[in-house]
């Protein structure tokens, strides 16, 4: 128990790497493949040093062909391996979208339950540091739309460290979104691996006045906003969805039933988004618990701009969240 409570300060990047190392250590069927994951140490240096530790057979550099190497990962999974496929950014994942949606997601169904595809596809997501429109998008909703996939969003260091392990236990394909923006951020987490589910959302902060429902890189922003709001007496509850498919509605519906107000915050575009889905389920299931219209703060519906100030303006920031909550509660 001593170990479990020992905390270390670590970056999001380091948390991801520890998760990877441990996965490689624990199961010989696990291997990592992707663009520059080996010799270069990963486009974002997440897998730096792993090639030296685990060798070329388990840390595989691939050609710049997302359809090819994601497809190879799916094949390896069918053949009994536990491949971890890294896709540098979600923008490039569209080149593998056909493999993911038409093969990984469908085979269990098309084989009458005979063929499982236990592949984990790690995808860098969201804005980074001025990486512009072709490296910066938040396309979690694309994948959350597809039956047959399990879609995870690691919005905290805890999940960056531990979600991979849980994902590798799944017999079915998992898309694991990691956030470029968080890589250098330091947080305290338990030194040892702690088990997390990949079926439930999580209340990251409890409160009674409003439910802020969010995921991904917006989780910390919402927590910071909640801290600000507490100073003026508003107790916001922050729900981290974590699992975008199949979405865990029980947790956020219970939260909204308690607080009677909901604000959904995401960096993805507003139209046809995760927030749209969450909002719809609130209306369907807990309408009579609502004391105010559900509100959403989403990414501006533009390609993510290059300029720093425009990049910031394109997604919800802490101030936006604070102001929106104040408006919802005080109506001013």
């Amino acid at each position, binding site marked *: 128990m001593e170990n479990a409570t020992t905390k270390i300060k670590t970056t999001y990047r380091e948390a991801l790497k520890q998760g990877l190392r441990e996965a490689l250590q624990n199961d010989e069927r696990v291997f990592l493949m992707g663009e520059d994951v080996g010799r270069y140490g990963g486009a974002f240096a997440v897998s730096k040093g792993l090639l030296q530790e685990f060798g070329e057979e388990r840390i595989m550099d691939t050609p710049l062909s997302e359809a090819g190497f994601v497809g190879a990962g799916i094949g390896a999974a069918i053949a009994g391996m536990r491949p971890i496929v890294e896709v540098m950014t979600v923008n490039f994942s569209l080149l593998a979208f056909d493999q993911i949606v038409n093969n990984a997601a469908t085979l269990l169904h098309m084989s009458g339950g005979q063929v499982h595809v236990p592949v984990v596809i790690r995808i860098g997501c969201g804005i980074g540091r001025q990486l512009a429109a072709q490296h910066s998008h938040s396309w979690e909703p694309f994948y959350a739309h597809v039956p047959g996939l399990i879609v995870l969003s690691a919005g905290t260091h805890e999940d960056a460290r531990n979600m991979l392990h849980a994902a590798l236990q799944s017999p079915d394909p998992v898309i694991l979104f990691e956030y470029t923006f968080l890589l250098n951020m330091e947080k305290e987490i338990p030194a040892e691996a702690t088990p997390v589910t990949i079926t439930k959302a999580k209340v990251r902060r409890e409160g009674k006045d409003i439910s802020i429902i969010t995921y991904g890189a917006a989780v910390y922003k919402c927590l910071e906003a909640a801290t600000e709001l507490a100073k003026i007496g508003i107790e916001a509850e922050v729900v981290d969805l974590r699992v975008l498919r199949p979405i865990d509605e029980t947790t956020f519906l219970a939260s909204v039933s308690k607080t009677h107000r909901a604000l959904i915050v995401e960096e993805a575009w507003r139209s046809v988004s995760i927030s749209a889905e969450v909002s719809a389920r609130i209306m369907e299931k807990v309408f*009579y618990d609502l004391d*105010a219209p559900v509100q959403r703060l989403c990414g501006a519906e533009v390609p993510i701009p290059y300029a720093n100030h425009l990049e910031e303006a394109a997604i919800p920031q802490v101030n936006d969240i604070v102001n929106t909550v104040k408006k919802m509660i005080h109506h001013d």
Partner: protein
Amino acid sequence: MIEFKMPSLGADMEDGTLIEWKKKPGDTVKRGDIIAEVETQKGLIEIEIFDEGIIDKFLIQEGTKVPVGAVMALLQPSGVSLETKKEKEPAPLQPTEEKTIKSTPISTAETRKIKVSPLARRIAEENHINLESVAGTGPDGAITKENVDHEIAKIEKIEPEKINAPAVAIRSAIAAAMSKSNSEIPHYYLEKKIDFTKALAWLQEANSQRSIKKRLLPVVLLIKATARSLSDFPDLNAIWENGLQQKKDINIGFVVSLTTGGIIVPAIHHTNLKSVDEIMETLNDIIPRARAFKLRSSELTDSTITLTSVGENGADVVYGIIYPPQVAIVGFGTISEQPFAEKGMLGIRSVVKATLAGDHRATDGLIGSRFLAAINNYLQNPDSL
């Protein structure tokens, strides 16, 4: 068109809630018909109509609270032919209707759209809160949970009253009337010891010839004697409103104590014209109705003087407080055997002490004194009653 208005059922009544229409449009009504039941501080009252005609339309919906004087229904006077009715109806009716609607905004409110959060609406329904009366402070003035909770808290503060609503309402009505009386009316008090022996003997004789149901109570004689005396001293059968105004009819208001506490005072109409048997019948009718809060409007409003009788095994004397705008209240204590001196002899007699509280603005002690003496005289000659 005749307007039927919410009647005033006492000086302290400000409004009433229409519980039920007892007639429907198209019905012919005549004077004295019960047209509606109205909930007041004094309970559920059957409201009589004093006009004749055909009910044209109801302007107030059942369940609506309206102030005294609000037009509740329109009547076509009898004798107006259908043709004239048709010609006249559209034009002159409009203003009346408009005015009515303005004075009772509640009845038009259902067409107004109010914004309520789903949660607030649910809580309101569960707690029977009328959302019309709640002010919204949410987005766009929407009613929120907070607003409804506030309204519930407000009602819960009054809730203890609601548990025994009529009793408490009556208590406050009594409090208002009696405080007004004591602060405005300069009372004088007179007391007369009356030998009730002959009257009791007369009653015993009279009752021996009556079925149990029709037997007379002593109070009937007290009421009858008072009514007769009022004919002799009409200044006491009056109200004080910008001076003394004698009342033509003698309608004695008889104080009925309620089991839940409080009193209610129904009128015995034309007491002086009723025989003792008729007075007894009236008492047998109105006392249970008064206790069930089922009086008619005229019974609540028509009293011209009040009579209070302590009854058996009670206090010997009662000094009343006048019910405004009346100018007198007569009190009778318990009838009991007392040593009684008469013509130099001492005997034991059944005695009742009669009191009069009079409004000194309206009458003086001389009249009151003669009035009590008259009651005594009548009671000494029960045959004459």
